[in-house]
């Protein structure tokens, strides 16, 4: 609790402090190990929080086509930079531990969990969020397909689902294999099994999966028709 009077930090500090106390006072139950004289980095241990102030750092990156420069605490995840610094709140914070996919954005052409990467690691990078895919007046084909097929209920996971879905179709097109690809040496096809497997990093608490799949299938069909006609609708 380094920041007295800051309600948020104090509450969090209190909880963590309680956790550390519990760990210190807990009686070892089984298999006590003696600390070894290993030459690994020291294992973390409870104790006084080092008196270290937040460290600020500057990072420049392109977000949805616009160059941005931010002054952030080094601890700032890309997710928090987008939401709290750039006010791009389309990208959602679900679990904040890379398990739910609500924070999925596209960085340098690849979908990633923005909660598990630091903003300062993306100097010179290019980020596309759900706001950058389309606008209310001109939806991205995947956004339009989600609306048409009712690919959501509460909508909280939807921005991550859409960013992921756009990238999944590109990954299949690029020939990247998945767990369900039958032959490693043949190009993967756009099938329901492929899309379901590749979307497994995006959890939907409302269970809109089948409609999400229909939306993706429609866009995949449009893309294939577009390729046949020599254009790319996405």
């Amino acid at each position, binding site marked *: 609790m380094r920041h007295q009077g800051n309600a948020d930090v104090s509450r969090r500090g209190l909880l963590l402090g309680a956790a550390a106390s519990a760990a210190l006072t807990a009686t070892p139950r089984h298999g006590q190990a003696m600390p070894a004289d290993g030459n690994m980095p020291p294992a973390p241990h409870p104790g006084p929080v080092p008196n270290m102030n937040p460290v600020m750092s500057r990072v420049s990156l392109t977000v949805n086509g616009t160059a941005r420069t931010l002054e952030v605490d080094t601890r700032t995840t890309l997710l928090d930079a987008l939401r709290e610094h750039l006010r791009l709140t389309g990208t959602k914070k679900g679990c904040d531990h890379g398990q739910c996919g609500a924070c999925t954005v596209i960085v340098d052409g690849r979908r990633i*969990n923005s909660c598990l990467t630091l903003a300062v*690691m993306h100097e010179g990078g290019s980020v596309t969020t759900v706001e950058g895919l389309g606008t209310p007046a001109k939806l991205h084909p995947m956004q339009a397909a989600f609306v048409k097929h009712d690919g959501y209920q509460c909508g909280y996971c939807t921005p991550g689902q859409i960013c992921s879905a756009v990238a999944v179709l590109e990954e299949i097109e690029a020939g990247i294999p998945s767990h369900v690809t039958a032959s490693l040496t043949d190009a993967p096809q756009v099938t329901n099994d492929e899309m379901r497997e590749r979307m497994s990093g995006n959890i939907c608490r409302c269970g809109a999966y089948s409609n999400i799949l229909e939306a993706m299938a429609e866009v995949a069909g449009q893309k294939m028709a577009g390729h046949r006609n020599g254009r790319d609708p996405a």
Partner: protein
Amino acid sequence: MRPFTYERATSPADAAAKAASIPGARFIAGGTNLLDLMKLQIETPAHLIDVNGLGLDKIEDTPDGGLRVGALVRNTDLAADMRVRQHYGVLSRALVAGASGQLRNVATTAGNLLQRTRCPYFYDPNQPCNKRQPGSGCSAIGGVSRQLGIVGTSEACIATHPSDMAVAMRVLDATVETVRPGGAMRRIPIADLHRLPGDSPHVETTLERGELITAVTLPKPVGGAQIYHKVRDRASYAFALVSVAAIVHPDGTGRVALGGVAPKPWRVEAAEAHMKQGAKVVTAGLLADARPTDDNRFKVRLAERTLAAVLAEARG
């Protein structure tokens, strides 16, 4: 997260030297495991050395017909490389069986090897854990241990190494290349990278403080049917209860390593002499020293049955 300073390394040797000399320094590559643990204050580095810009992201042919995989090659890129798909299929299969698409796009080769256990007691700062807090005790022994290790474990720790990729690399006889803080290079057979816990489960690898993995080399292809079979509680995006990486030749000989059962990819070369005799004999050799808990005793039979399925698949 605790506050930390941050810098981008300028060369592998620079990164290693700094990691050895700056108190509380850690490398960060993909960060998908480290940041997760930093948010829980299980990892509390005072300084992060970003190694993403070091050019260690290439997959190159080696003079002896193998592949040299840069430490920073992302899991997606390694799985998708056509040389890997054609000649090291077990590695591609293991990679795409792990994590999610988003994580594989970021997670690196070296980071995958060095990721930490997902033992629920390691992840819970309220519980004693010898790996997280040396000497505090092991909550998993006598606790909920269904997911945890059955072999290679100790009285101090029954955590498993969670990687799929590493199990395939073990069966492929990969070698880990490093640079030490003084700038010297070192080659470590993957079998020797991870330590068994013994009485010091917080010391997980044989790397020196500051030593940086720069690449993983794969020997020239050995052919055979290459299979990775992962058994888990969900069809996707879950850690293995048991996994089998196998290379089976037409004459029935081959190699096998297990995941999900031990603190490191589990391979016993002597057991492979019995490959022609089938899964029961081989598994008996692999797990001769198993000491399962009541919760995870099922893994012994599961390993045998999974290997039987793999051998049947290899026969076609």
